[in-house]
């Protein structure tokens, strides 16, 4: 790489185009007028490193790594406050989830971000048999932050679990296999195909 191309690379700004092509609702990012009302409206705002409007500016400024490795968009709780107030009607909530999903697919999302961890647990649990196995999901959740805190939480929640079993809201047998849909093979084939279609749509930048 010549010194010249290196400079060009450094200033290359294709990230906005990449977001438009590969991120759900990404084509809206350029419509943001930087008024700040979304950032000011987010009830979790103080917990974000970069509130939505800053994320949109960073995308336009080509700050690819900073955006995609950020934990910010994982903070979105889908309260929709920002969408309701955005004067340009950007689907901000959906863009946040789109960015999070994209970062995850690229494998650069922050590994220990709790929302990401939970989303992954939930998806793995659901996609296995086509039904959510609440017992396994619950237990996996208790142990999400390690063995010790997992045991503590499990003990604390035990009476609730026992009551649920007593009232037939949950079966301990779920732990061994658990219920599912009839055609799990078919489901897996559908999901595989969907992934292929999505992968084919992904554009390189």
């Amino acid at each position, binding site marked *: 790489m010549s010194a010249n191309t290196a400079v060009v690379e450094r200033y290359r700004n294709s990230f906005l185009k990449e977001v438009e092509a590969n991120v759900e609702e990404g084509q809206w990012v350029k419509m943001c007028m930087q*008024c700040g009302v979304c950032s*000011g*409206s987010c009830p979790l705002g*103080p917990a974000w490193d970069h509130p939505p409007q800053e994320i949109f500016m960073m995308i336009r400024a080509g700050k690819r790594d900073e955006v995609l490795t950020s934990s910010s968009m994982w903070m979105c709780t889908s309260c929709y406050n920002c969408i309701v*107030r955005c004067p340009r*009607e950007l689907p901000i909530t959906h863009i946040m989830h789109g960015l999070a999903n994209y970062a995850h697919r690229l494998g650069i999302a922050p590994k220990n971000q709790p929302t990401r961890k939970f989303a992954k647990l939930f998806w793995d649990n659901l996609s296995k048999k086509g039904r959510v196995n609440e017992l396994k999901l619950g237990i996996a959740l208790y142990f999400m932050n390690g063995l010790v805190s997992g045991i503590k939480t499990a003990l604390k929640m035990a009476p609730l679990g026992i009551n649920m079993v007593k009232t037939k809201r949950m079966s301990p047998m779920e732990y061994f296999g658990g219920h599912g849909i009839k055609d799990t093979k078919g489901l897996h084939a559908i999901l595989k195909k969907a992934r292929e279609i999505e992968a084919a749509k992904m554009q390189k930048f």
Partner: protein
Amino acid sequence: MAEIVATNQTILVVGGGISGMTAALEAAECGKQVILVEKNPTVGGRVSQLYRYFPKLCHPTCGMEINLKRLRANKNVRLMTMTEVTGVSGDAGNYSVSLKINPRFVNENCTTCGACGEAVDVQFDDEHNYGLGQRKGAYLPHAMAYPQRYVIDPRIIGTADADKAKSACPVNAIDLNMKGESAKLTVGAIIWATGWRPFDANKIQPYGYDRIANVITSVEFERLADPHGPTGGKILRPSDNKEAKNIAFIQCAGSRDRNYLKHCSRICCMASLKQSTYVREKFGDEGKASIYYIDIRAIDRIDDFHQMVKNDPNVTFVKSKVARIDEDKSTGNPVLHGVNTEGYQRYANPHDLVVLAVGMEPSVPVGDFPIKVTVNEHGFIEQDESNGAIFAAGCSSDALDVNRAVQSATASALRAIQVVNRAAGMEG
């Protein structure tokens, strides 16, 4: 039916604000016959509700005074107040118009001595002050009103107050039996100058205009600053009548927002910059103004005014669309929440008073026109062939300041003159 002389060489002007008056006078001074119709008891429109005009900061009296002088001097204009257009049919050069004339219950004998106003007890919200104060059931709309003649509010007709007013009048000017009238006339061209109205701030839910006493609109703020206004020109906040020295202005309140008005109302940046000078005028170094904005749109030569205000150390500019306002119950202070986009700091700023720089929308909604007119997506009348000889002047054509409204009025007068000239076969 009232007798009004008009022909297809007459120009009808609807709306007697600064634009309608200008259009009527320009045409009349070219020798054309003009009928100027105004629905209120006085001409002047919303300009007469301002404390000062930007950019020169003179009082509206100076602009109005000269127009009233021209109006009084010109025999070609027939002014009809308290009159509305109820129907229009026909084509360019030949329109048939129906009017409804509401009774004033006071005739030309009135000397504006005010005896009737003193005699009457009942009070109503004062429209001139956007309901911030009250006025009597017999009243002069405001000091500059033209014609200078009292009005009896129709709501007191049939009550003891009406009789009190009548017997108090020393010149027998009050006629409680005056009836509403209708009239039909033929005109060649119509200039539509019905102006604008402030966007309804109640619709902007997060700003709490309907819930928080000390959140007001920019049009109300003009009235607070005006010595003829409800507080005698003192900037007192509604909750406790305390002087409001630390005032926030929120720009684009309802404008540039797909949830409300899509367009930029164009004058509200300048209006807030101007109003920040009121704060400094009234309170000197103790007066503080904070302007929360997306971007300041003070266009071309008017940007000098923006720069002047920017140089004032007591005026703070915060680049942020405020997310929401709540109220500190113990002090009555509105607290503004949002993020300053220059640096991304979160704020929760208390102020004594918040002024919403509300947007302008056309005063006549599309469906309410007496004849089909082509409007743009914001409801302002287009310059369009399909409109025949109906021409918009001033804020019925767009959100405009006075300077541009008057230019637009002159242009529409010229267009109307061409039509009536053609009707007269005078075109060379």
